[in-house]
C-alpha cells in the first residue's frame, strides 16, 4: 500500500523560512486583516452583486490571443477553463451571492452545449479552440452530464439537465480528470479482459500505458534545419500521417525555397504539396527509425505496430533512398544518409 513518505517532510534547507517573519510582511498588516474579515459580501468594500456583474461582463473575453493549440489534449484543458468562465457568463445577477435561477441557468447551459455538440460533430475531430467557449462548455458538460446519464439511480438529482443529458452522447474527457492514476482508470475494463486470457490482459494494459503518453516523435526533413514533433497517437492511418507531415513542412519548405531563390535567379516558386511520401512516387519519402535503431520505410507494417515501434521520423529526398553504402557513392552522401542529426 502506498505509504506516507517516511523520514519526515521538512526541507533540506530552512534558512529562508527562518529569516522570514510574517509580521514584517506588508501582506498581513492591519488593513489586510480588515479585508479578510468575514462579511456577507467580499471584503474590500465590494458587495456580491458587484462581483456578479463583473462575472457577467468579464473584462477579458473568452477569446484569448495567442493560445490556439492544435493538439486536442491541451485544448481540452484550456477549453474547459474557458468553459468555466462560460458558465459564469450565463449566470444572471442576483444579490446575496446565490446562483441564478436554476432553470434559466441550465437552459442556457443546454443551449450552449447543444450548439457545442453540433459544432463538434461538424468538425469531426476534437479540436476545440479556446475561442469557441461553448464547444469547450460542451466538453465540460460531457463530463458533467455523462455520469448523470449513467448514474440515474445513484443520484437524487432532480435538475432539468438530467433527462436531456441522458440523450447526449459522451463527449471529450477533460485531461487529467478525474485525478486518479492511469492504472485505476480502466480497472473494470482490464478485469474483463484478463478474465478471457492473460495475454490479452497485458495487451490491453500496454495499450492503456501507451495511450497515456501521447506519442510525440521528432521528425526532420531534408533541407530544413528545424525539426518538428508529431503525435503518432493523433492519427490512425498512414494516409493521415502523410497529410499531417505535408502540412507540417509545406510552409517551411516554401520558406527554404524562397531563401534559395534569393540566392539564385529562378523566377518561380512551386507551391506543390509534399505528396507521394508513402509510395516513393514523390520527391520525398517518409522513413522512420524503429526501437532497434534500424531505418525503415514507412508503410510496410500495420499501423499499430508502426506506432509502437517508431522512435523517430525523417522525410528524405527520394533520390537519396537509392543509395546503398556499398555502392560507389561518396562518403559525404553516406554520412548524410546514415546521420539523423
Amino acid at each position, binding site marked *: 500500500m502506498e505509504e506516507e513518505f517516511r*523520514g519526515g517532510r521538512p526541507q533540506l534547507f530552512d534558512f529562508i523560512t527562518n529569516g522570514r517573519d510574517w509580521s514584517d510582511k506588508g501582506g498581513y498588516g492591519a488593513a489586510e486583516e480588515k479585508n479578510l474579515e468575514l462579511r456577507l459580501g467580499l471584503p474590500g468594500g465590494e458587495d456580491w452583486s458587484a462581483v456578479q456583474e463583473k462575472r457577467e461582463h468579464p473584462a477579458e473575453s473568452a477569446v484569448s*490571443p495567442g493560445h490556439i493549440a492544435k493538439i486536442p489534449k*491541451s485544448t481540452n484543458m484550456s477549453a474547459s477553463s474557458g468553459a468555466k468562465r462560460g458558465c459564469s457568463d450565463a449566470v444572471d445577477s442576483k444579490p446575496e451571492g446565490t*446562483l441564478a435561477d436554476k432553470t434559466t441557468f441550465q437552459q442556457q447551459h443546454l443551449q450552449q452545449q447543444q450548439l457545442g455538440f453540433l459544432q463538434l460533430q461538424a468538425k469531426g475531430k476534437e479540436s476545440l479552440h479556446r475561442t469557441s467557449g461553448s464547444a469547450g462548455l460542451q466538453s465540460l458538460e460531457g463530463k*458533467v452530464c455523462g455520469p448523470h446519464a449513467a448514474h440515474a439511480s445513484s443520484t437524487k438529482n432532480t435538475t432539468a439537465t438530467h433527462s436531456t443529458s441522458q440523450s447526449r452522447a459522451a463527449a471529450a474527457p477533460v485531461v487529467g480528470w478525474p485525478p486518479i492514476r492511469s492504472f485505476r482508470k480502466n480497472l*473494470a475494463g482490464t478485469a474483463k479482459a484478463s478474465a478471457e486470457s492473460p495475454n490479452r490482459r497485458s495487451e490491453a494494459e500496454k495499450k492503456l500505458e501507451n495511450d497515456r503518453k501521447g506519442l510525440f516523435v521528432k521528425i526532420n526533413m531534408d533541407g530544413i534545419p528545424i525539426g518538428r514533433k508529431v503525435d503518432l497517437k493523433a492519427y490512425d492511418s498512414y494516409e493521415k500521417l502523410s497529410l499531417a507531415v505535408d502540412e507540417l513542412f509545406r510552409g517551411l519548405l516554401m520558406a527554404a525555397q524562397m531563401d534559395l531563390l534569393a540566392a539564385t535567379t529562378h523566377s518561380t516558386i512551386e507551391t506543390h504539396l509534399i505528396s507521394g511520401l508513402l509510395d516513393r512516387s514523390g520527391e520525398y519519402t517518409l522513413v522512420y527509425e524503429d526501437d532497434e535503431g534500424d531505418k525503415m520505410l514507412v508503410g510496410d507494417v500495420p499501423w499499430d505496430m508502426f506506432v509502437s515501434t517508431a522512435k523517430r521520423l525523417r522525410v528524405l529526398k527520394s533520390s537519396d533512398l537509392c543509395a546503398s553504402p556499398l555502392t560507389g557513392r561518396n562518403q559525404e552522401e553516406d554520412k548524410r544518409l546514415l546521420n539523423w542529426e
Partner: protein
Amino acid sequence: MTYFPEEVVEHIVDFLGSHRDRNAVSTVCKAWYQVERLSRRNVFVGNCYAIRPERVMARFPWMKSLGVKGKPHFADFNLVPYDWGGFAQPWIEAAARGCPGLEELRLKRMVVTDDDLELLARSFPSFKSLVLVSCEGFSTDGLAAIATYCRGLRELDLQENEVEDHGRQWLSCFPDSCTSLVSLNFACLKGEINTNALERLVARCPDLRSLKLNRAISVESLNRILARAPHLVDLGTGSMMVNHHTEAYHRLINAFLGCKSLRSLSGFWDASSCCLQAVYPVCVNLTALNLSYAPAIQGDDLIKLICLCFKLQKLWVLDCIGDKGLAAVASTCKDLQELRVFPSDIYGAGTTAVTEEGLVAISSGCSKLNSLLYFCYQMTNTALVTVAKNCPHFTRFRLCILDPGKPDPVTDQPLDEGFGAIVRSCKNLRRLSLSGLLTDKVFLYIGMHAEHLEMLSIAFAGDSDKGMVYVLNGCKNLRKLEIRDCPFGDDALLKDVTKYETMRSLWMSSCDVTLGGCRALAAKMPSLNVEIINESDEADEFQENLSDLHKVEKLYVYRTVARGRTDAPDFVWIL
C-alpha cells in the same frame, strides 16, 4: 562565551530525529552546523531541482538514508509531459562518489533507468533498502542488477511504478546466499515471474514480513508461498481468480488459517466474491485492507467481509461499496483512521456509487478518522458541515466530486460553506483537495482558518485573483500549491512574490497567467526557477516571437539554490 565541547553538542543532536529540528540546529553557528551535518543520517530532498546533488553529498558525507522527489504531483494525472525531467541519474552518481556508505534510497516520481539501478547496485556495499514510488524508465533488467549485486538487501519496494517487462528471470538473480529480505513488493510489475525462484527465495528469508505479489501470480503459487511464509505481516495477493470448488481454493483457506501474524492485506486482483471467504479467518486481526483493485467484489459480499474487520485502521475500496457498505464500515470499524474510496467506473454506466450519505455515515461512526480521499458524484454543504463536526481530527482531506464545478444538488449553492466548515473545525489540517462549485469565498475561509495547511490542490474553482491571494496571504505554512483550470492570473501570481520562497513549489495549469507575468516573476525572484511547459508545436519554433500576452499552459515555480536546470527538454523554458 564559555567553552561548550562539540562532543556534547553532538551527543545532544543525536537525539534529534526530525529534519526541522536538525535544520534549526544547523543555523545556530558554524560549529553547530558542522556537528549537525556530520551526524545527519537521514536526508530528505523534496524537490530534486532545488539543489544540486553534489552539494547534498558534500554537506552530509555520512548520510545513510536519502529520499528524493522529482516530478510535481499533477504528473500522476498526466499533466506533466513524459520527458519533463526528474532524473535519478545525477543523484545516484553523486551518491556513489560522495556517500558510498549509503544504505537506503527512496525516490518518488523520478525517472530511473536500468543503468542507474546497476550503478546503485554496484556502488554501495552496505545498501539495504530501495523504495521506488511512481517512478518510470526502468525495466526488469534493472531489478536483476539490484537482485544480483546488493548483498544483504533487506527491502525492495516498488510502488505503482511503470516497469518495462524484459522477462521473468530477474527474481532468479537473487543469489542463494540472499537470506536477508524483510520486504519485497513487486505488485506493479505486469509480466510473469519465475515462481519457483520466488518460492525458494521466500523459503530462505526467515525475516520476510511484507510480500506483495503481482497479478501474474496464481492462487496455486500463493498457496505454496504462504505455506513457506506463515509469519507474514503484510501480504499483497496476486490474482485471486479461483473457483469455489477446487482444491486450490481449499488450500487457500488453510493457508490463510495459518497466517496468524497477518495485519495488512492488498491485491485481490480478479477476485470474485466467492474467494473472499478464504480470508475471513484473518479479518479479525486486520489493521489495513486494500480492495481497490477488485471491482468484481460488490455489495453484500463486501459488507460481509468488512463486518469482520473491526480492528481496521486503514481501508481502501472502490465506490461500488456504496453508501450502504460505508454505513457497515462506520458501524464496524471504530478505529478507522484512513479511508480512500476510488471511482470504479468513470466512463461507463455505473450502477452504484457513493454519495454524501456514505461520507456522513462514516464520519458519525469513525471519529478517529484523520485521512480521507473520497470520489463521489455529489456532495452537499450540510453533509460537509456534519462531517466537520464529527471528525475534527482530519490532517488530510481530499474530496473529489467527479463533475467539475458541480454545486450542492439540493440547494444549488457552491460548496464554500461546506469546505469552510472543514477548515474551521479541523485545526490540524495539513492537506486539502477541493472540488465542486467553489467561489472566492472558500479561499477566504482557507486563508483565515487553515493555519497548518501545507498542501492545497484546486481545480475548476474560484472567480478571480482574490481567491488565490487569500490563500497565499493566509496560509503561513503552505508548502505546495497546485492549481488547474482556475481564473487566477498575473495579478494573483505577482501579488506577493516572496511568498514562493517559503514554499516548495507552485503549479498552475490552464489558468490565466501570461508569459509577461511569468517573466516578471522570474525577474523579481532569482531564487526561483520559473518553468513554462509548452507542448504546442508552434510555440516551440517561435519562442522569441511570443508576446507577453501569451497565455501560459503550464507553469511550475519552485525555490532553488541551483539556478536553472541543465536537463530541461526543449518544451520547458526556464525564464
